[in-house]
């Protein structure tokens, strides 16, 4: 009886649906089942990364792209444009959207509900946590063979530039379950220093911590801005002390003592250890406490609303930041003081003459394929063609939307791929062209940097954006080629069960203790108590889980 009522209701609902004429959309939604054509007739033996299918293949993807400012010519849309038509022409793969969202959180939400209800598109991008869940739920395709057989040289080259650090993150029990994106390297902080101030106080570019300290001291005491007031500071920091891809952090100083904050690294015994709890950290903190006491580290750094104010006001001549610092915050300094000559250098160096850095998470997003999708290799083929298209290496697509400034995100997959040294590679190409005075080999983007460099050389700092490009792309990235690097690899980027629960507390404990030590509110020996406490309230558990997960 119950069943009949439900059936009746369903029948009437369906009638209503058809009557309303809105049902045409529902058919689109039963994503992968639509692919009826037998795989056997569709040239499976042909393992060409760019091979065209005999029969049309459909590929329904999930897409996030904000179309607010998207202006495509000829009435093209995000779902129906030249790129998509090119893919269809070249591969016979028709890409369409199972669904599309406008904002990142709408995408996450939609992914959440589609996974939970197993209503999956053919291919979609997820984060690491979702990837693990999908693998556990056995919903995504094993791509090991697909990758082996169909990966293009360009994509492979990008992945290989990271060693196995990227692909291994999508590999479970020896099987590859996703195509990860890549986050380019070289985003660590090094030291930016004002050459004009150095000249004024009559000092050389420092290399070691001691030299840096004496330069900072001179910058404070010898009135480098020449206003007759003792209003300059040595250097400043954000209250959290460190951070990737962020200016105004003290990572270079920690590095000079082989200390790294918040990293899971291999200790001497091959076990995973948490870098913030190692003895080197104590040494580094003791040094920072000393620097703060001496007033070399900005006395107000913990309460400053915005450390960039110091830079904009030209009250500081030393800043720690990544290669892109000339895009921000340094332009504010140059704007306000045309004499400001910011120079980068890879330092301070440790006692062995090395510049120690840790690496950032090389990947964050993962392109997965629905297990029921008949042509998983089509996803990789599209990715090949798309990536070559974005890099303008495919003559067939290089002229599409030329000069219209269309974002690469209009290609089907919002999956960023590049080689780890991408930032430095740009420098190498630029440098070569500059030395040869021949920009003909450069693409549009690089040509722009090239022109700006020359423009800035002729009229230094007249045009701030040109100065930014010159200082970041030529001076800044040059430092990424330094031979002094010692990169300490973070061996775990995920979140274990205990971390999900306790990491926030552990991090808070760590940050507060470290800040108090640096400010001198707590003696340096408080560090030992911190380590004990950290281990007790969950740290040991976390390390155990990580060691287990890694050994698996």
């Amino acid at each position: 009886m119950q069943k009949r009522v439900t059936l009746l209701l369903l029948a009437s609902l369906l009638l209503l649906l058809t009557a309303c004429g809105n049902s045409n959309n529902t058919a689109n939604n039963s994503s992968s089942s639509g692919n009826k054509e037998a795989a056997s007739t569709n040239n499976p033996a042909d393992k060409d990364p760019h091979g065209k299918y005999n029969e049309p293949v459909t590929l329904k993807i999930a897409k996030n792209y904000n179309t607010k400012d998207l202006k495509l010519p000829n009435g093209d849309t995000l779902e129906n444009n030249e790129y998509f038509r090119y893919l269809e022409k070249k591969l016979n793969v028709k890409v369409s959207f199972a669904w599309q969202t406008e904002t990142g959180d709408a995408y996450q939400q939609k992914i959440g509900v589609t996974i939970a209800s197993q209503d999956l598109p053919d291919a979609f991008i997820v984060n690491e946590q979702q990837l693990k869940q999908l693998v556990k739920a056995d919903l995504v395709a094993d791509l090991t063979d697909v990758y082996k057989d169909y990966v293009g040289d360009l994509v492979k080259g990008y992945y290989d530039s990271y060693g196995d650090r990227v692909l291994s993150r999508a590999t479970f029990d020896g099987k590859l379950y996703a195509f990860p994106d890549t986050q380019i390297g070289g985003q660590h902080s090094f030291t930016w220093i004002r050459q004009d101030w150095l000249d004024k106080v009559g000092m050389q570019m420092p290399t070691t911590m001691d030299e840096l300290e004496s330069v900072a001291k001179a910058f404070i005491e010898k009135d480098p801005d020449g206003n007759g007031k003792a209003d300059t500071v040595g250097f400043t920091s954000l209250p959290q002390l460190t951070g990737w891809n962020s200016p105004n952090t003290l990572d270079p100083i920690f590095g000079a003592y082989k200390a790294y904050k918040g990293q899971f690294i291999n200790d001497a015994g091959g076990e995973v250890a948490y870098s913030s709890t190692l003895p080197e950290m104590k040494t580094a903190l003791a040094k920072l406490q000393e620097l703060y006491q001496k007033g070399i580290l900005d006395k107000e750094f913990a309460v400053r609303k915005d450390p960039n104010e110091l830079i904009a006001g030209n009250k500081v001549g030393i800043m720690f930041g990544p290669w892109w610092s000339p895009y921000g915050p340094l332009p504010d300094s140059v704007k306000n003081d045309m004499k400001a000559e910011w120079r980068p250098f890879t330092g301070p160096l440790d006692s062995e003459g090395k510049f120690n850095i840790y690496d950032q998470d090389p990947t964050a997003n993962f392109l997965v394929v629905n297990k029921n999708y008949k042509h998983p290799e089509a996803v990789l083929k599209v990715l090949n063609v798309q990536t070559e298209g974005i890099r303008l290496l495919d003559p067939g697509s290089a002229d599409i939307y030329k000069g219209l400034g269309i974002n690469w995100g209009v290609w089907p997959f919002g999956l960023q791929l590049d080689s780890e040294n991408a930032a430095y590679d740009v420098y190498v190409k630029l440098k070569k062209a500059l030395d040869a005075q021949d920009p003909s080999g450069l693409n549009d983007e690089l040509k722009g940097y090239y022109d700006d460099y020359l423009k800035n050389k002729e009229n230094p700092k007249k045009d701030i954006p040109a100065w930014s490009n010159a200082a970041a792309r030529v001076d800044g990235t040059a430092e990424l080629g330094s031979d002094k690097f010692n990169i300490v690899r973070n061996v775990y980027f995920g979140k274990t069960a205990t971390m999900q629960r306790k990491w926030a507390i552990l991090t808070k404990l760590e940050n507060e203790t470290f800040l108090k030590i640096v400010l001198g509110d707590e003696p340096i020996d408080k560090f030992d108590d911190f380590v004990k406490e950290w281990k007790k309230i969950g740290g040991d558990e976390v390390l155990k889980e990580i060691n287990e997960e890694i050994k698996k």
Partner: protein
Amino acid sequence: MVKSTTLFSKSTDVTIVVLLAIISFISLFPLVHTLAISFSEKSAANAGDVLLWPKGFNLTSYRIILEDHKFFAAFRVSVERVLLGAFINMALTVIMAYPLSKPSRIFPGRDIYMWYLVFCMLFSGGLIPLYMTVTELHLQNTLWSLVLPGAVPIFNVILIMNFFRNLPKELDEAAVVDGAGPWQTLFKVFLPVSLPSLATVTLFSIVGHWNSFFDGLIFMSKPENYPLQTYIQQLVVRIDPELMKGMTTDDLIRLSKASDRTLNGAKLIIAMIPLLVIYPFLQKYFVHGIVLGSVKE
């Protein structure tokens, strides 16, 4: 003596009127301000120069919206959902409120239904199970997903039920004596006398449907099918938290400067128009509705 009281009273009167004028001004200010911005020049609006009157009056924003198919598609979805949704709400309210207004000695089982409704009103299973249900029925991406999950406006049913209950009993009994069945009694006798109350709850339904954005975000697969509020939420209001990960205050400032205030203002204004159109009706009925809500036994 007498004179001084009136004087005191007069000045109090003036103070009250002035206070109320200020309050009204504050109530209306954001709307008028947005209207002024939508008609202003982009640069003036972005610089924050516009207050209550447009600077550099022009219609560019509205012209841009006229060419924005997505905006109008969203507008249409909203109108459709309001029409369909409010109709279904009203129909179900009427046919459910009527039997429930019978005391349980006449309609045994009435109390069970009543508890069922209250139970459904107070508890909810959350979004994921609801989404699963909607997808199982293949309703996602259709108008039905916006209309059916909230098809029974329980609170309105209770309001109208209370209203029916307070109608004179003779009405019902006379109809029965005339040989009318329950359906006829409902439609021929009860409906005509309760039109104002029904209008009230229907207007509330209309406003509710017009204003809701979250279901559109969950159940619609493509921005083309978003209702207007969802469209505005996603393309005008929302600062994407994903985008903001690792953003500094500086970036935020830049982001807020880049936004197109005049265009956004115009979109907000157009989204308000339908409500402004029905507002006179709303105003006529909602006081009635509030009184409905506090029926005492």
